[in-house]
């Protein structure tokens, strides 16, 4: 028996909206269960409803995403998917921030840096000022294919942000303490934000007996202005060593880094989640392929997560220990490229897992009995 036309229009509109929401479910699932699910949704809807409620929408999105992971009886697949998605999102966010760093202004040239140093510490001659060859350098040079071997085999920590600056070795124009005070005063006068100084012992205790108060201390001044950061270290003279100053400028994190990082992270996390779900569904009925995939997933997550967790802890301690007008780049927080070898091996393991999943044999045949009854993990 037909429905009144007004009611039919309302139901059709609601059905279209439910249908759009059901796109969250994987295609194979929709093919076999879509009509049934839609029928149940329409049965449950009170008369006159034209759009899904917020609660229904959230429920369908949540369970549609769960359905994308397959393995309905598994109690751990969601946790594994989240681990993979979060780490994948973090790495893609870091990659996006590296791209965004390309928007940074070039570093000051030699003449400009010399002039800036002269304003900060007038009357002091700095030597060794040279143009930076790139924004990020590896052993002072732009990264090249020739450096990949060293980069992979534990020298990745040498890939760092370049700066331009100079040194004073021996003759200081002013005593160390006066130098520090003058520099802080001049920086503030020029509009720099000067952070509290930090001091470090020039050497460790040689004792006993040892009186730490007698150990000479180096002082570090850090300041920021606009897109530039300034760092100066002042070492006093002590027996066998002359006084020493190093001073340099770097670029602060460009503002584009934040939207790039957030966007890249969200896109990357979503892509990894979808890939994870695809591979999980493709292998849920293939015992051997499923076991291989689990092993490779374990290897990948271990090689990606362990260096990341260790690096985040180390970087957090480092940031707490001294002022940072500009945070270290995101990839350094993730231990990259110091741990680029484990990262690459993890990538290889992930790609091998996806290749195993891509081998034909995992698709459900339309209309088969197996399609109606998912099997447990």
């Amino acid at each position, binding site marked *: 028996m037909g429905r009144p036309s007004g009611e039919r229009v309302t139901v059709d509109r609601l059905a279209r909206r439910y249908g759009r929401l059901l796109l969250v479910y994987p295609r194979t699932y929709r093919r076999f269960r879509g009509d049934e699910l839609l029928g*149940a949704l329409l*049965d*449950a809807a009170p008369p006159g409803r034209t759009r899904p409620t917020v609660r229904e929408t959230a429920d*369908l999105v949540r*369970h549609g995403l769960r359905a994308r992971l397959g393995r309905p009886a598994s109690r751990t697949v969601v946790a594994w998917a989240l681990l993979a998605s979060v780490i994948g999102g973090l790495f893609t966010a870091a990659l996006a921030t590296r791209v965004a760093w390309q928007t940074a202004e070039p570093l000051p040239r030699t003449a400009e840096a010399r002039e800036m140093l002269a304003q900060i510490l007038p009357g002091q001659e700095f030597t060794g000022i040279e143009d930076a060859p790139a924004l990020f350098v590896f052993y002072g040079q732009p990264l090249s294919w020739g450096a990949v071997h060293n980069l992979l085999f534990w020298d990745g920590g040498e890939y760092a942000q370049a700066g331009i600056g100079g040194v004073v070795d021996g003759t200081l124009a002013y005593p160390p303490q006066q130098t520090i005070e003058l520099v802080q005063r001049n920086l503030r006068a020029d509009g720099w934000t000067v952070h509290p100084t930090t001091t470090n012992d020039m050497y460790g205790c040689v004792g006993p007996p040892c009186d730490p108060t007698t150990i000479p201390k180096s002082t570090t001044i850090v300041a920021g202005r606009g897109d530039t950061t300034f760092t100066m270290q002042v070492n006093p003279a002590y027996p066998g060593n002359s006084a020493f100053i190093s001073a340099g400028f770097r670029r602060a994190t460009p503002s584009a880094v934040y939207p790039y990082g957030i966007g890249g992270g969200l896109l990357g996390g979503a892509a990894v989640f979808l890939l994870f779900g695809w591979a999980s569904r493709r292998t849920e009925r293939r015992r051997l392929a499923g076991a291989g995939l689990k092993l490779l997933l374990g290897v990948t997550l271990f090689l990606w997560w362990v260096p990341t967790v260790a690096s985040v802890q180390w970087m957090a301690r480092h940031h707490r220990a001294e002022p940072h007008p500009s945070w270290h780049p995101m990839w350094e927080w993730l231990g990259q490229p110091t741990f680029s070898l484990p990262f690459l091996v993890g990538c290889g393991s992930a790609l091998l897992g996806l290749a195993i999943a891509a081998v034909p044999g995992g698709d459900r045949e339309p209309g088969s009995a197996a399609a109606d009854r998912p099997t*447990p993990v």
Partner: protein
Amino acid sequence: MVCAVKNMREPTFLILTALADGPRHGYGIVREVRTLSEGRVSLLTGTLYTALDRLTAEGLIEPDREEEVDGRTRRYYRITTEGLAALTAQTARLRQLAAAAEARLRTVRPRTV
């Protein structure tokens, strides 16, 4: 099976109970669960189908038949022998817990009144 019974949550228990006296389709299960729980548990459709997928994968229920009513597809589900065993075990467990709680309450009530 032991694991499924041990960790059976209330919605799962209610879905199996709803199917204990015969096959039902998705919305029929939702209505029956609401009745059994006296309106306390209202399953949303996404939640229901995730539970049905899991119970099917665990072998506690299975598809029964399909029919089309008013242009809408309805698939019926029935409880399996394993599902009945799990429901029986869980019912016994809940009965034992309820009996233990009632016994405790009987000893407490005279003092609190």
